[in-house]
């Protein structure tokens, strides 16, 4: 059976110019954020245990724990709110169509009976408050004319709701049933976040005009502001109160987070400024922040979490990150003596992961190009993107050196490197196959059919090219040309991937018709067939280091592991490995396989024999 052993979760989806509102559950130190269609719940004290909830039909935007910690309410861009149980099988309690457009923020009332949601109502209501189990409305929320970016529920009685939005207004509602009471137009730009203090005496609004204003919690009157001395120099995207209601954390586009002391007269003074480590680019703008128990969590635009300690201000933050976009390729290479998993996504982000520890940093390249095909050997990365170039980037320990690009004439569709002779690389393009020796094109080879996948043997003597018609052509490799030796016909769809086994005695091929076949390399006979158990195209194949097991990953979100010596029907199936499809697979050792997919997460599975 295959059991999940580690999850390297994705990072929250971010957008330039907007903040993200993450939330948490103080009782279990868990944070909740959204990426793509998944809602990720992650424990701050055990970051490798992340759970993803994937039941939304549209991109999820916000998720909040109920006050008693048993339920989660999550919202998406279609205006739907799902309330589901946090434990066990995440049973759905209710689903409501709350707004007609995207929901930006939602909050539970402190007694857990009502939920307020705000967002883009497309001309109709922008804010709605409703009972959590029946969905009946509990008030009329007029007063906004543009998208409402944030809303908050007063945590103590008498209940109040405050909202703020793109029309620069901060509105105050009394109830239940909630009715408009007053409005403030003190901000001069989008008001991004509004939050009540945990004791309910004050609330604070922060805006893209770099100001933060503090109001009285019961009456709604403005009482003070965050003093501009040493204040933020960029839009403030989010604010979070400390559990004792005496301090707030704000995060801003000026790449810093600040902790403010809120004095009795309602003004805020900067206590300290936190500057997370970063390369200084746009990706370091901080778009989300949360104060949870002793943790100060800040999230940057690039998706990096920095967790500071509130009680020990000078401690270095714990940094971790993940992918935001679909992970397209995985490779396991030893880096610095340690077995590292490298994952890449099409936006050019390469992340290193170490089993048991998790995030081990990003590989920063000098030329940050997009990546479509990726392969790695011990001292080099070979990537290609959407232009006509293939990049060879040397690895010095865990840093990237200067890469060199080779132009191959058209967009590469597949890459393969001869593991024992890494200067030979074969590239498949629309017009044929190109052989690279070192950084030069040895020769372009016109094969006469449309190539869809290829592989070169580890010793560089043989290559297999798969065509759009499902035929496998075997060539022997000369110094600058290929000589065809045989054609194998068994597949009934375009070949998607071909891989030699680590000892090169066998090779495996897979196609778009959901079939995989293992062949003996010398006799070119079929060794294992009937590997037809997927229900959609097979995207990736991986061999176990000793050649005993082979794993296939498919668009149908499952990973199937077969044993070479046993019939295909005795297989191990891992269902639902990645929402949206599995795109990368690799074995870390004889019993663990790591998979990556469209949900931007990477999971390590432990295989046990029945």
């Amino acid at each position: 059976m295959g059991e999940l052993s580690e999850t390297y979760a994705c990072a929250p989806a971010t957008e330039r110019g907007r903040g993200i509102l993450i939330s948490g559950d103080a009782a279990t130190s868990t944070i909740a954020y959204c990426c793509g269609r998944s809602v990720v719940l992650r424990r701050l004290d055990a970051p490798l245990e992340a759970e993803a909830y994937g039941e939304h039909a549209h991109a999820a935007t916000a998720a909040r724990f109920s006050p008693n910690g048993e339920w989660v309410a999550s919202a998406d861009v279609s205006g739907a709110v799902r309330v589901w149980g946090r434990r066990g099988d995440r049973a759905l309690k209710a689903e409501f169509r709350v707004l007609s457009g995207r929901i930006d923020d939602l909050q539970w009332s402190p007694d857990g009976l009502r939920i307020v949601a705000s967002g883009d109502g497309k001309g109709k209501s922008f804010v709605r408050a409703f009972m959590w189990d029946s969905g009946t409305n509990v008030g009329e929320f007029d007063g906004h004319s543009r998208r409402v970016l944030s809303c908050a529920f007063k945590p103590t009685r008498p209940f109040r709701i405050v909202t703020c939005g793109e029309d620069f207004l901060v509105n105050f509602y009394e109830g239940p049933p909630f009715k408009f009471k007053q409005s403030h137009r003190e901000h001069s730009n989008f008001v991004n976040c509004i939050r009540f203090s945990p004791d309910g005496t004050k609330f604070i609004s922060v805006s893209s005009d770099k100001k933060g204003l503090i109001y009285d919690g019961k009456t709604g009157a403005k009482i003070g502001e965050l003093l501009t001395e040493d204040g933020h120099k960029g839009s403030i995207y989010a604010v979070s109160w400390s559990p004792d209601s005496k301090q707030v954390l704000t995060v801003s586009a000026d790449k810093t987070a600040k902790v403010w002391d809120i004095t009795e007269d309602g003004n805020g003074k900067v206590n300290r400024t936190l500057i997370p480590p970063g390369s200084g680019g746009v990706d370091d703008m901080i778009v989300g922040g949360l104060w949870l128990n002793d943790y100060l969590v800040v999230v940057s635009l690039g998706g990096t979490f920095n967790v500071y300690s509130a009680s020990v201000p000078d401690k270095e933050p714990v940094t971790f990150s993940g992918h935001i976009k679909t992970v397209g390729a995985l490779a396991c290479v030893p880096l610095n003596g340690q077995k590292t998993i490298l994952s890449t996504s099409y936006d050019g982000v390469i992340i290193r992961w170490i089993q048991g520890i998790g995030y081990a940093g990003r590989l920063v390249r000098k030329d940050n190009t997009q990546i479509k095909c990726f392969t790695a050997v011990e001292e080099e990365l070979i990537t290609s993107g959407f232009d006509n170039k293939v990049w060879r980037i040397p690895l010095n320990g865990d840093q990237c050196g200067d890469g060199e690009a080779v132009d191959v004439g058209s967009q590469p569709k597949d890459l393969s490197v001869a593991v024992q002779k890494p200067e030979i690389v074969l590239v498949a393009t629309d017009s044929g196959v190109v052989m690279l020796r070192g950084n030069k094109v040895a020769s372009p080879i016109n094969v006469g059919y449309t190539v869809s996948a290829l592989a070169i043997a580890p010793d560089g003597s043989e290559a297999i090219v798969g065509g759009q018609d499902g035929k496998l052509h075997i060539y022997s490799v000369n110094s600058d040309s290929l000589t065809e030796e045989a054609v194998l016909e068994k597949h009934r769809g375009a070949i998607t991937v071909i891989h030699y086994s680590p000892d090169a005695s066998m090779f495996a091929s897979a196609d778009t018709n959901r079939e995989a076949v293992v062949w003996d390399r010398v006799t070119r006979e079929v060794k294992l067939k009937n590997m037809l158990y997927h229900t959609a195209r097979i995207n990736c194949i991986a061999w176990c280091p000793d050649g005993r097991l082979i794993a296939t990953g498919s668009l149908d979100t499952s990973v199937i592991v077969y044993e070479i010596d046993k019939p295909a029907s005795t297989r191990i199936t891992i269902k639902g490995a990645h929402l949206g499809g599995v795109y990368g697979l690799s074995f870390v050792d004889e019993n663990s396989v790591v998979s990556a997919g469209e949900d931007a997460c990477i999971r390590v599975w432990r295989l046990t024999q029945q």
Partner: protein
Amino acid sequence: MSFRMKNASSGMGVADHSRDTFVELQRKKLHRYVIYKIDENKKEVVVEKTGAPGETYDDLTASLPEDDCRYAVYDLDFVTEENCQKSKIFFIAWSPSTSRIRAKMLYATSKSRFRHELDGVHYEIQATDPSEMDLDILRERAN
């Protein structure tokens, strides 16, 4: 002695022996499985192979050709949720996608006539590749 019966759709008859073998499987439990083939020369459905009661489902799967159609009958023994030992008969129409179109058509049109003769089949499965007649699928259908 075999005699022909009229089949409006394809003219295939059903040999008596085929029916008798099925009754032996059903009543006397003499076989675990029976594989039937359409003999085009004699224009009828005949028994190609039978399996002893000790053989398994894997033996049946191994006996089916990869690129030609067959009919098969299999007696599945299983234990239900309430812990009773039960046995159900499955009719499997094996029609792999790699077989010739003429064979697929022949077997498809003769199937209903043939099924009519086999009285007492509990479940029918149509399989176009080995993954569709996996033992798990049979177990799931049986209750």
